């Protein structure tokens, strides 16, 4: 069977540099050769990630690929986006792993950390020898992160943290957690090492979605930290939100990867599947669905590519990332649903991947800013009025 190839209806490859294409190809090869053969086994286990692939992922440079220095590849944002696209072609859990490590752990240390923190953590995180997680969301505060209850209180020269974080990707795998907590001075970021007394984690089980990813709760009970563990330049909610802009940017590209995986699967399937004397692909209702998929993927690619160019040019506004994340995840989810539909009964078994992408994308739609929150961000941008 022919290898997977991405959609390029508008010959967008012509707009990519050699490096950008090479980055995409090398990650695609890794996903095909090493990730896809093992993904099912992890999905069946629920909440399990193929940790044995982490050294190869690090060697490839997948962690913090768009950051500069400290062992990071220093790629531009188009190449970074293409990398995220290829990872999510494998599974949203694979992309999430890299997104969290790079966009939500390495990025805040890179942007807001002290030199000591950068030197201590960034090379280890880039090399995959240390795993990180990002603790912002709480059981009662998701979209309204500013309402967080986790507290940081001064004690001598240091801090004491108390609170609970939930829906934390890689929480129990993490050697270091970037925990956001409220102090008298406002919201601040803290690096909590795994072995700090009072810091515990537990995994969320029974997930229908993102089963190839570890999702945890973080429990902080009188966790004492020295001042050196506070991110010195992170002041206020703006800091964690800037991290989310990084990760959401990656998601806008990643969702296209999931959409293209479903599209590729269903084009192949409908060509081979004989229904009432002819291929399913030859039926009008099928062709309408396929035409919609191709069109939406292509529009999503244009959106992602332009946002990438603006990001590289330093002209990005977070509302643009909201539009890209909102649109591309939404169309990817619709494409996955349509693909699963066209696969018929076959579509519900894990020999086919569209349903796996579909249920993953249900999560992706409501994480890193829900679809509705991004709607309101755009709504506020248009009207100047903050709606609830």
């Amino acid at each position, binding site marked *: 069977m*022919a*290898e997977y*190839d991405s959609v390029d209806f508008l010959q967008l490859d012509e707009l990519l540099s*050699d*490096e950008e*294409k*090479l*980055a995409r*190809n*090398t990650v695609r*090869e*890794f996903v095909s050769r090493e990730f896809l053969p093992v993904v099912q086994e992890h999905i069946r286990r629920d909440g399990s990630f193929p940790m044995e692939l982490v050294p*190869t992922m690090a*060697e*490839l*440079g*997948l962690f913090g*690929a768009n950051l500069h220095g400290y*062992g*990071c*590849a*220093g*790629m531009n944002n188009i*190449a970074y986006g293409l*990398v995220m696209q290829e990872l999510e072609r494998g599974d949203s859990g694979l992309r999430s792993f890299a997104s969290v490590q790079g966009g939500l752990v390495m990025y805040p240390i890179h942007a807001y950390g002290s030199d000591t923190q950068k030197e201590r953590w960034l090379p280890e995180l880039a090399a995959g020898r240390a795993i990180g997680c990002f603790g912002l969301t709480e059981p009662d505060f998701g979209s309204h992160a500013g309402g967080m209850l986790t507290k940081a209180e001064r004690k001598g020269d240091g801090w004491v943290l108390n609170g609970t974080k939930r829906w934390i990707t890689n929480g129990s795998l993490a050697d270091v957690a970037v925990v956001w907590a409220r102090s008298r001075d406002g919201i601040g970021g803290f690096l909590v090492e795994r072995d700090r007394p009072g810091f515990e984690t537990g995994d969320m089980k029974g997930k229908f979605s993102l089963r190839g990813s570890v999702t945890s709760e973080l429990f902080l009970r009188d966790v004492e930290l020295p001042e050196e563990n506070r991110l010195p330049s992170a002041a206020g909610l703006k800091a964690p939100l800037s991290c989310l802009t990084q990760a959401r940017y990656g998601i806008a590209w990643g969702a296209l990867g999931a959409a293209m995986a479903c599209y590729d699967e269903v084009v192949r399937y409908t060509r081979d599947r004989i229904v009432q004397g002819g291929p399913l692909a030859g039926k009008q209702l099928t062709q309408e669905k396929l035409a919609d998929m191709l069109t939406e993927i292509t529009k999503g690619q244009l959106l992602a590519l332009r946002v990438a160019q603006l990001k590289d040019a330093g002209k990005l506004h977070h509302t643009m990332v909201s539009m890209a994340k909102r649109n591309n995840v939404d169309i990817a989810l619709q494409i996955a649903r349509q693909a699963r539909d066209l696969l018929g009964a076959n579509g519900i078994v894990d020999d086919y991947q569209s349903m796996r992408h579909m249920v993953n994308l249900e999560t992706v739609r409501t994480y890193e800013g829900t679809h509705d929150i991004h709607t309101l961000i755009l709504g506020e941008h248009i009207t100047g009025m903050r709606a609830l």
Partner: protein
Amino acid sequence: MKIMVCLKQVPHQDARLDIDSAGTWIQESNIKFEINTYDTYALEEALRAKDEGECEVVVVSIGPDRTTQALRTALGMGADRAVHIKDEEADGSDALGLAKLLAAVAKEESPDTIFTGFMSDDDNFAAVPPMLAELVGLPHTTAAVKVVRGDSSLTVDRETEGGSYEVVELPLPCLVSVQTGINQVRYASLKGIMAAKKKPLDVKSVADLGLSGSVGAGAAKVKIEKIAPPPKGDTAELLEGSTDEVVAGLVTKIKELGLL
């Protein structure tokens, strides 16, 4: 220590191949290309030598503009320099013409070892490596499945018919053509791809190599008259009908031929 690796860019294994209007090659527009599979193993073999000690790896390829991507991939995987022989005058070269071009580069570079793939995925000639070695005056062997590096020689296990191996020792400098599966080929890392941007990629013309008039279609002793898809043989039989009928027909045929 210097190792030269010869790479060929060939149509992607999944590319849909259509014959061109002259009937002597395939239509190259709108198909994807990749590094010849055998050559990726040759490159990996060189990169392993580099991992173990001080060694410069120079990759060389002949082809049009698109060949740059193959060379950049090789640089991304860890090669140090690339030489791209790019000249329309080289078009239509036969194996000897290609070997002459590579030999001219080899003479300039004076590598301690030349690794090549055993053959190319598209032409399957397996002729260029021995010709190149002879033109440069190097001892050579083909179809290597294991290479052990010594101080002044290579010990090579080469594949022979029937699954047996022949062990040969070659003094350096020498040329070895490599069989697939000899190693596990690495990926080009993102850091490597970024670093590759800054690595030298020299473009050379036929004239630069002093070979004007002696390579290319005009000088080729072997000319492709025609390429064609495999003809339908007289003995081929196409089974028709529903799946059940086709399967039943196939089983009957296998029994008739005494294959079961």
